[in-house]
């Protein structure tokens, strides 16, 4: 099954592209460290979201050319960034006032597990090792919309969309949309609602790699990555 999925599933850039299609013009957006950062590369033409990084910058732009880095100008992943016109700096308490106060329109994070009640586990595998939470727990409880980007299954083929998270929680009932490598799934009323799936998989096969019931209402659309600027 896993091998078959590998042929039809979206890669990380394609998942990021799909998430970017839902970011509205003028939205204030926080992108988690790593994979979610790629969403910024696929901003829809004609829309100008404002990106927030929790270390105190609003309206930053892409990474500078190598050798042009200023290490006082970094994002939450400690990567060098640039500024757009109309940027602002502020201290950490003000930055998290923006987060906690509900001023961000969208936060997009990675996930280990997402439960059908919206619970998210993405900070600790619970297996010992060194815990590190960063700003994830703040973001998931407070942004107006919390979405996750994720492979639909783990490297071992286990579902990441589950009935109940077994890993330590990052937040309770916080996720409302999942952009996975196979589907777009909303969370509402304690259920997963399938909105889109990649054309190469049947509903039953998708259900088989999902750890809780996928409900539908109306049409399930094809999840197709195409158009100007779309990754291949």
């Amino acid at each position, binding site marked *: 099954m896993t091998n078959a999925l590998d042929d039809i599933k979206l890669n990380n850039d394609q998942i990021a592209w799909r998430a970017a299609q839902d970011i509205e013009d003028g939205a204030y957006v926080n992108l988690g460290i790593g994979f979610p950062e790629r969403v910024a590369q696929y901003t829809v033409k004609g829309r100008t979201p404002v990106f927030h990084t929790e270390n105190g910058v609003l309206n930053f732009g892409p990474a500078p050319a190598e050798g042009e880095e200023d290490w006082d100008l970094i994002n939450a992943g400690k990567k060098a960034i640039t500024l757009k016109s109309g940027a602002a700096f502020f201290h950490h308490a003000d930055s998290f006032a*923006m987060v*906690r106060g509900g001023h961000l329109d969208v936060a997009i994070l990675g996930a280990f597990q997402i439960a059908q009640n919206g619970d998210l586990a993405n900070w600790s595998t619970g297996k010992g090792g060194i815990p590190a939470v960063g700003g994830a727990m703040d973001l998931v409880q407070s942004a107006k919309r919390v979405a996750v980007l994720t492979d639909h299954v783990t490297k071992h083929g286990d579902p990441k969309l589950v009935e109940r998270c077994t890993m330590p929680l990052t937040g309770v009932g916080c996720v409302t949309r999942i952009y996975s490598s196979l589907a777009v799934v909303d969370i509402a009323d304690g259920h997963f609602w399938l909105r889109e799936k990649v054309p190469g998989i049947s509903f039953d096969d998708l259900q088989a790699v999902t750890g809780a019931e996928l409900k539908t209402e109306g049409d399930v659309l094809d999840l197709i990555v195409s158009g100007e600027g779309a990754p291949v």
Partner: protein
Amino acid sequence: MDKSVATLAEAVAPIGDGATVMIGGFGGSGAPIELIHALIDKGPKNLTVINNNAGNGHVGIAAMIEQGLVSKIICSFPRSSDPIAFNEAFKAGTLELEVVPQGTLAERIRAAGAGIPAFYTATSFGTDLAEGKPVETFDGKSYVQERWLKADFALIKGEIGDTMGNMTYRMAARNFNPIMAMAADCTIAQVTRIAEPGAIPPEQVVTPGIFVDRMVEVAEPRQEEILIREGAVYP
């Protein structure tokens, strides 16, 4: 993204009856007089006004009271050099008053903007203003629990704004304006000049644009203190 609107009337258009409205300023310093007067022109009723004071003379918040817009004021200090508008409405029983210690008022507003539903402060412990509020002891000292204070709208006054909503303030006119910008669902700012993004160096932004929804330019704002000394009456 362009948060600027063309007129004062358009700026205050969303404010309807029964709204809770934070108004920046400390006395006349930082008071958005032109926005307040535009709101009087529109004339919504039963407003709850949150300000440090309760109006002075016959302009600004005092004029809002005289024109019958206000049913409740939350403030720290309703006294002023010419408090007749407030005093008459208060004595007539048409205006409810909630007095809040000034630092608690500021922190309740900041808490609303920062997503903190409640916090503890030593301020007012053991006084009449703590009545009915939970008290808790931390490290052997007693503190009063205070709740966040939110608003539907904030009317604020700045110096330079850019079209993305970033703002600076002039001297002590800063006061409550930046924290009220954080605490309202819709923050409406008047500024002396609206500029293109980039006009304010990012290190000098005081209110980041994320906290501002609408911005109108009032190139020559009037100063409440001078209006009062002139005996001005609005409308």
